[in-house]
């Protein structure tokens, strides 16, 4: 099959970008979308042109590295599928594919389709963890955890941090990403001691990074390759409100303890 690609090309973060059209004439429907780009790139390189830069690594939908907007949809047309697991049989002969990077102020373009998502790491560093120092943990079966809680925590923990939720959101909000981690840890007994502090710090960091706010469009859930549900955002909001109310009490309690 044959497809026409309109690809966003941008030399570096400061340069101005533009769409450039390429013809991919020998596409096998069994190829993955990224393999199709590989083939285009091999021929570009041999013609002396710079290949199209795009992020990818595991190519099996788990590392979260890849991600481009295809015809307006993050990761392309197929539900719950990362760009690396999207196959060309999802398209038809003669299709025109517009390929762009994630668009969000908090994800500046590095080159072509590559963006800088380190803002996600900084949100995690702000509180996306349980402070369980390595060594001397108690036996793993000491605290039984109801299977439903554990399964729900796993649903949230399945987030691969690709950023499609941000790219899909009209506000470029990172609330689905942040809420997934807050819900994962907040649903487990291990996450309780830091639950309030976690939601406060992570939300503050998320705001500081320049992500927008949630206005309940639900585009994030639709774009998420791991089907992370927007109900986790509701959980995060509930935790956030609770943390606001308990903030003073907790801090004064801490002060007394220190005294």
């Amino acid at each position, binding site marked *: 099959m044959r497809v026409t690609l309109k690809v966003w090309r941008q*030399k570096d973060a400061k340069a101005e970008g533009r769409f450039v059209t390429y013809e991919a004439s020998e596409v096998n429907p069994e190829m993955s979308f990224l393999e199709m780009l590989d083939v285009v790139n091999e021929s570009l390189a041999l013609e002396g042109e710079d290949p199209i830069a795009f992020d990818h690594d595991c190519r099996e939908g788990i590392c979260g590295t890849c991600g481009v907007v295809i015809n307006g949809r993050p990761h392309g047309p197929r539900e719950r599928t990362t760009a690396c697991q999207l196959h060309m049989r999802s398209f038809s002969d003669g299709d025109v594919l517009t390929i762009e990077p994630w668009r969000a102020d908090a994800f500046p373009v590095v080159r072509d389709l590559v963006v800088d998502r380190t803002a996600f790491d900084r949100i995690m560093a702000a509180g996306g*963890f*349980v402070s369980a120092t390595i060594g001397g*943990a108690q036996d*793993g079966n000491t605290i039984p955890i109801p299977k439903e809680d554990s399964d729900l*925590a796993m649903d949230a923990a399945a987030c691969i941090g690709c950023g499609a939720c941000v790219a899909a959101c009209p506000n470029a909000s990172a609330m689905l990403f942040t809420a997934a981690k807050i819900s994962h840890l907040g649903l487990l007994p291990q996450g309780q001691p830091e639950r309030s502090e976690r939601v406060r710090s992570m939300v503050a960091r998320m705001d500081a990074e320049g992500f927008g706010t949630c206005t309940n469009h639900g585009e994030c859930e639709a774009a998420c390759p791991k089907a992370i549900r927007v109900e986790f955002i509701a959980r995060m909001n509930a935790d956030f409100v609770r943390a606001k109310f308990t903030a003073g009490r907790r801090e004064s309690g801490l002060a007394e303890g220190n005294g």
Partner: protein
Amino acid sequence: MKLDARVPSGPIEKKWEKHRFEMKLVNPSNKRRYSIIVVGSGLAGGGGAAAMAELGYNVRCFCYQDSPRRAHSIAAQGGINAAKNYRNDGDSVRRLFYDTVKGGDFRAREANVYRLAEVSVNIIDQCVAQGVPFAREYGGLLDNRSFGGAQVSRTFYARGQTGQQLLLGAYQALERQIGLGQVAMYSRHEMQELIVVDGRARGVVVRDMVTGELETHLADAVCLATGGYGNVFYLATNAKGCNTTAIWRAYKKGAAFANPCFTQIHPTCIPVTGEYQSKLTLMSESLRNDGRIWVPKAKGDKRPPIEIPEDERDYYLERMYPTYGNLAPRDIASRAAKRVCDEGRGVGPTGRGVYLDFKDAIARLGKRKIEENYGNLFEMYQRITDENPYEVPMCIYPASHYTMGGLWVDYDLMSTIPGLFVLGEANFSDHGANRLGASALMQGLGDGYFVIPHTIGNYLAREKFSPVPDDHPEVVAAQEAVAARTKRLLAIRGRRSVTSFHRELGKILWEHCGMERNRKGLEHALGQLPGLREEFWKNVNVPGSGQELNQSLEVAGRVADFLELGELMCLDALERDESCGCHFRTEHQMADGEAKRDDQKFCHVAAWEHTGDGRKPNRHVEPLTYENVDLAVRSYK
């Protein structure tokens, strides 16, 4: 070069405890005076960086990915072993130790394996404390499943994403230390060279992959946790970026490379479909708990699988290995698949495939239970192949997956270069000639969380360090070597793509140094490889410059190193004139086709010392002694 494993004396179950007491400690307030470089951010690197930072060391961690959360540990599906005996089915530290030594076909160092089995229980506890959402039973306790090469259920898992959840646990611990300022993280930085000063590892040269700038980082010790080199075969289950460059640079600076020919070919991967293919996808070994592997009894039977009646199917693993059946170890299952395909009984469009069938399991357990256990794997299979494994059997074939070989390390995980530690898959230590399923995650976290935090202190406390000046001749030489190499790659402007060389290398190795090897094939490969390497340096096309994000340049540097490593693999395979585990020399087999070891001549680790480009490396030997297990013929019948 002298290989001294420095294994502590005393009974095996007391060695690690005794050693921990005898090791020198660094005073808590002195730890902040030491700086440590960690290259790699997977279970071993990320976990180790977090653990060492928690102790108070100043850590700098580097990864080529855009975030430490993307290290390839994330792709491990099935699970992690631990000798918890929660099933009451006869498991123990000693049994996990025994299974691992036997699974590795008696080519691993006993003391290291025992320690790994010991810390396995701590790993699970630590992960639970971090909030890793392991699978649980309705009573709220941790669930287990079985994996190949064991007769107990000791594998802990988080759906089909165990590696992801364990890595996120380590990443979260790492991010906490980054937030506290105890770890400085350098993502999109790739190690290009090791800096050795006065015989000790003191730093690295890295490339900032966004700007192309070369940076020098100096420290008191360097830890490489850069994973395996399975991508040497081009088509592999590894992430595209996985490479050998860090350990290969270290090898060329004097670190011995042990057992390079021990490469694991995993039996259950989605078969190759075309020339454009960029990677192969693993289907977790856990599927063999319930899936039955078969091919038609008749050659060239092209009927669709559902039309082939029961009595015309050959469930060959169950037939050949009645005790372990479909849970035979990976090397054995892979070889068996290759053989039935060589006999002309393979299935799928290319004839290089076997069926993995869930029909009986679905009838026995119900579709819902199968979906709960393997749903995401089935979905992944369907996405890639466009076939529904609930209705038709999966078609699978072996692929390069893991490398047991790696840099030689002593009991403290230190290489032959003092101050250079090697963790996880990058070292050679624990799996011998074949790794059992669910043991890689165990080793990565074991090395990172529970071994290196102790042993690094023992090294730092015994040595004296003065700062290395930025203009030290060794530093300048390392920088210049990297710059010259980059310049050379960019100057060729040849007519062949980097990938075409990589593909060709992969084909040679897959053919002659893959699931079966023999003298003739290895000698043939050794004859071809120098020519391919020479052509690469004359005719490769690397567009762009060194002062920008240049993915072609990144790949070219990695392939250049793979081209050299491939030769060392073949040399190692040739010199190891026996069969053991994954290393199957067709000249050495039993009457029934099983691997025939030669314990008289080859019960040792082969560690190669670089002697200069274009010169044959020296082969050194670390004898392996088995005091706690009988050196027996491995049998899974």
